[in-house]
């Protein structure tokens, strides 16, 4: 894909595909899961061909998501390790929320908020998959007790609500910080965006590879 002049490559084509497969699964999981969570949302089962189909396909979306997210994890984990500056960045969060990042520490490839989203997603997906297996009665009913299934069911719904909350934060942040969505659609960001939000990453990228190659 041709990138706008003077832009920096941020996500490779494979990374973007990987991200959007994961994102698609998460949305399908949220829709089918909420349909079975709240009677008022049961109508969402119509999107999947009815209640029984929704029940049957939901865990398979989860399986694809787990595989897809695992690749995403391998791809991004080294950029998401917590650093001392991240704690300072969290301390300056009110400046960040007020669109004034000059008063927060310079940010590398990811800021602390993005790292928290990454690690929350990782943890919650693991909890969701493990608890989901326990209540995937078609295949795994005989292997656990009913008591454990009740625990898993509650845990699964709690984790699901949390991950949908994290998802709202993730999407809102991408929309709020203008120029961000382009990173995941076209793969590139502008030099100004990088200076404003990820200054350390801009310097490192400029130093290491020049402006137009993918990270």
């Amino acid at each position: 894909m041709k990138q706008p002049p003077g832009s920096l490559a941020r996500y490779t084509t494979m990374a973007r595909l990987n991200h959007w497969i994961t994102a698609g699964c998460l949305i399908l999981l949220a829709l089918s899961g909420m349909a079975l969570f709240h009677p008022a949302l049961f109508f969402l089962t119509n999107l999947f061909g009815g209640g029984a189909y929704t029940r049957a396909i939901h865990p398979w979306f989860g399986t694809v998501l787990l595989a897809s997210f695992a690749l995403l994890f391998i791809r991004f984990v080294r950029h998401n390790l917590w650093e001392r500056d991240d704690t300072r960045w969290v301390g300056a969060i009110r400046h960040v929320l007020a669109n004034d990042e000059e008063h927060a520490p310079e940010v590398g490839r990811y800021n602390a908020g993005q790292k928290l989203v990454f690690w929350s997603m990782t943890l919650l997906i693991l909890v969701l998959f493990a608890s989901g297996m326990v209540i995937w009665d078609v295949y795994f009913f005989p292997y656990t007790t009913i008591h454990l299934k009740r625990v898993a069911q509650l845990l699964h719904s709690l984790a699901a609500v949390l991950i949908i909350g994290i998802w709202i934060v993730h999407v809102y942040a991408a929309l709020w910080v203008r120029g961000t969505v382009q990173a995941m659609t076209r793969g590139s960001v502008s030099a100004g965006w990088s200076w404003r939000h990820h200054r350390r990453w801009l310097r490192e990228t400029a130093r290491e590879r020049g402006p137009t190659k993918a990270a």
Partner: protein
Amino acid sequence: MADFQSLDVVRRSASTEIPPQVRVQPEIAKLIDVSRCIGCKACQAACMEWNDLRQDVGYFEGSYDNPADLSPATWTLMRFTEWEDPKGDLEWLIRKDGCMHCADPGCLEACPSPGAIVQYANGIVDFVSENCIGCGYCIKGCPFNIPRLSQADQKVYKCTLCSDRVAVGQEPACAKACPTGAIVFGTKSDMTAWAGERIDDLKSRGFDQAGLYDPAGVGGTHVMYVLHHADKPSIYAGLPDNPQISRLVQAWKGMMKPIAMAGLAFTAVVGFMHWMVAGPNEVQPEDEEHGRKVLDEKQE
């Protein structure tokens, strides 16, 4: 939309509609007098016959229980227990297991599919299989471990208390077949009164702890037992001493639903409000200048 009126449905799973309440029907109950049961399994045979169910032939598992457990094709099962009483005497306890038709049914509470589980005005809790999606939530909701998921059609089955027979004024097949009168059927008040007579009789014959099993934790049941040892229900093949819907299920199906929905709506609203207050975080022309400078410097 469910046909509440003609079926006298008073509760319907995963539904917010309020069924008509004007018409009052007497509550029915099946009373199983464990002290009169001889373990002949006529009730099991009658249940298979009436409901047209055939359990696959299984394996001998060292007890009289046959088949070994409830299943999608076994809606009632005699469970045999050899119990040594405090005097050292052997007592053979035989309990006909099956759905208890709770007044507060955990299965109905847990079910996510509108109208897959209904409760009729007479107290019968029935699975409407065409609406069943096979999620198994009812299995987690049930305090008595009754519903069974079928691998044939991924639907859940259990005793219907012969709702089809009761609807036309007949007693359940098991009660009809019982040769000793251990299973009797009628209005709940009649059955409670009859149980009282039976309990008096048992007490007069040395069973001091004889009593009626109609557990309050689930609002009472529409299948009740006369037990000679009502102080220890669990000796009867694990009949729960104090059954109630698991707190885990109550949390998940109770507070959790509104709190979760409100929490997610709140998160989205906070995002919107933040946008209204702080506005978008936009790249300024000077950012672009600085950014380009960094790139150009490093390029040289």
